[in-house]
């Protein structure tokens, strides 16, 4: 869809749930057509940031810009035609079929009383094909495996035909093959031009699949930038408080994170090198 270089931006954003802001001084610029991963320890505010980007939470201060316009001032359906959000572990109503669920993705495109158009039908068919869920379309969502279910939800978000897709922990509670299934699909989407922003708690996955990493701690962005520059032992120490080695994946060249527990420390030279401590671009 729209390919402005910065489909999503935040300027001086603070976000809270009524009391003290949970996240403050947030200045982000999400690059178009890339996968951005928000990482950080539990409670660092990464999911809160995602919710603010999707307008599920209003910014207490500052503005979130969608295609350059203040997202708070845009009509809800307008936002929903440009930005899709998949929360963590969405629950489908009992008995609803895959096709019915994916049809819900057309909600922002349809008017009251309007019959489905060919554009609607095409969007559904394409979403099913791209996520490999076409053969499941008549099945009940609650009868599917976790990985299939997550792909169906992504199909729903695809049917929404937005240029930006936000996902909160899309791989949690999935076993490893299903995690890969979902992440590979997101890479396909990126290659087709979608801007993907996701919250991941697994830094290893972020390092392998994201183009850009935004690392947060205590409600602030600690560092952000291209994966290969940002994912360093210093990041793991400063953000997650763990000792780790980061080597180049012998097959893909992506950063490979090897965390070291208390009992590993004697075995490997894992002390972080103190140079290059701020890998971030301002």
């Amino acid at each position, binding site marked *: 869809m729209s390919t402005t270089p910065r489909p999503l931006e935040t300027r001086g954003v603070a976000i809270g*749930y*009524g009391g003290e802001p949970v996240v403050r001084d947030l200045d982000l610029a999400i690059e178009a057509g890339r996968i951005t991963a928000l990482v950080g320890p539990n409670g660092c505010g990464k999911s809160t940031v995602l*919710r603010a980007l*999707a*307008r*599920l939470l209003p910014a207490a201060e500052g503005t979130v810009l969608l295609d350059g316009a203040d997202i708070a001032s845009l009509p*809800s*359906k*307008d*936002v*929903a*035609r440009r*930005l*899709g*959000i*998949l*929360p963590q572990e*969405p*629950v*489908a*109503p*009992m*008995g*609803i079929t895959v*096709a019915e*669920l994916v049809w*819900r*993705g057309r*909600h*922002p495109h*349809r008017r*009251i*009383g309007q019959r489905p158009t060919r554009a609607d*039908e*095409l969007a*559904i*068919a*394409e979403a*099913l*094909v*791209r996520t490999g869920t*076409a053969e499941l*379309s*008549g099945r009940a969502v609650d009868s599917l495996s976790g990985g299939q279910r997550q792909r169906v939800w992504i199909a729903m*978000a695809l049917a*929404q035909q937005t240029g930006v897709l936000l996902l909160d922990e899309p791989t949690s509670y999935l076993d490893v093959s299903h995690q890969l299934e979902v992440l590979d699909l997101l890479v396909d989407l990126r290659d087709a031009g979608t801007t993907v922003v996701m919250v991941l708690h697994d830094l290893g996955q972020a390092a392998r699949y994201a183009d850009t990493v935004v690392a947060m701690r205590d409600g602030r962005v600690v560092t952000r930038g291209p994966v290969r520059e940002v994912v360093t032992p210093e990041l793991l120490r400063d953000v997650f408080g763990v000792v780790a080695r980061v080597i180049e994946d012998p097959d893909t060249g992506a950063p490979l994170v090897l965390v070291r527990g208390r009992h590993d420390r004697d075995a490997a030279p894992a002390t972080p090198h103190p140079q290059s401590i701020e890998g971030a671009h301002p």
Partner: protein
Amino acid sequence: MTQALDVDAVLHALRRADRAHRRRTTVVHVALAGVLLVVLVLTVTQGSSVSVPFGDALVAATGQGSGLADYVVWENLAPRAFTAVLAGLLLGLSGVIFQRLVRNVLATPDVIGVTAGASAGGVTVLVLLGRSGAPTQIGALIGASVAVVAIMLLASGRSAAVHRIVLVGIGISACFASVTNYVLAQADEGGTQRAMRWLVGSLNGAQWSDVRLLAVTAGLAIATLVVIGRDLDALRLGDDVAAGLGTRVQRTRLAVLMLGAVMAAMASSVVGPVAFVALVSGPIAARLPAGGGLAAAGLVGAIVLTASDLVAQAAPGISPVPTGAITALVGAPLLMALLLRRTASV
């Protein structure tokens, strides 16, 4: 290229499945309408202890009869039957939209305090003001509205609002029950009797004016449902998904709650707080072949109430009893079954 072909094939498969689903839905709706018609005909022909010949009764049911048939059928049975159909429809619809909104089969107006509010309001007017008819209906509406506002205020939290609605509703239900009991304790004997009859739910004395009132309510409610139905569908996916799809979550939730409350209150104001019709309609409709939408739930509600009223009036041995006694007799075991089955759905 191959993907384009795939999309085409999938498109056709989807259309085929959609056509089949629509056929099934039509069959189910026609079948339900047929059952309702049979119950209606039985009510106007067999519903009275005065025997009117079948043919005469049918003629009288169109308003063309004369003499005894006209009196029995047109003045008594027909308005009663149509009141049952419309009140059942309203109760069925209000139940299923609450169940879908809260995503809990127990979250019907009779469980979460809306009907209890209507009862308290109606009984207060009936006993303290000694007025029946329209003032009772207004009292019931006010009571139901107070219940909804209280639920909204007390249950409005940042998260998990959906579960809080049920919990808060049960509490509110208890509060209103105590109001009803207090008012009943203050009543004289005649007042208590009138109030008890209304409270169990009875279609005795239903008139054409009641039918008109319920028909207008049903018309407006269905029009509103057409407008907000798809937003309600989106809400069933959870607040965040719905908001992401461009639904205004709070506004839709309030609209659905108010609509359901008005439907339940209007129906209760005429037929009394009939038990269980709102609760069982959605789950019964969901078990029909086409997976039961709102229309099916409304039709099931109409059938349940009309058939219960027929049994209450005309079943040998037990009749006449208040209609609510029959719906409770059928509904209570169904409620138990729904509670015990893990896959209870709406």
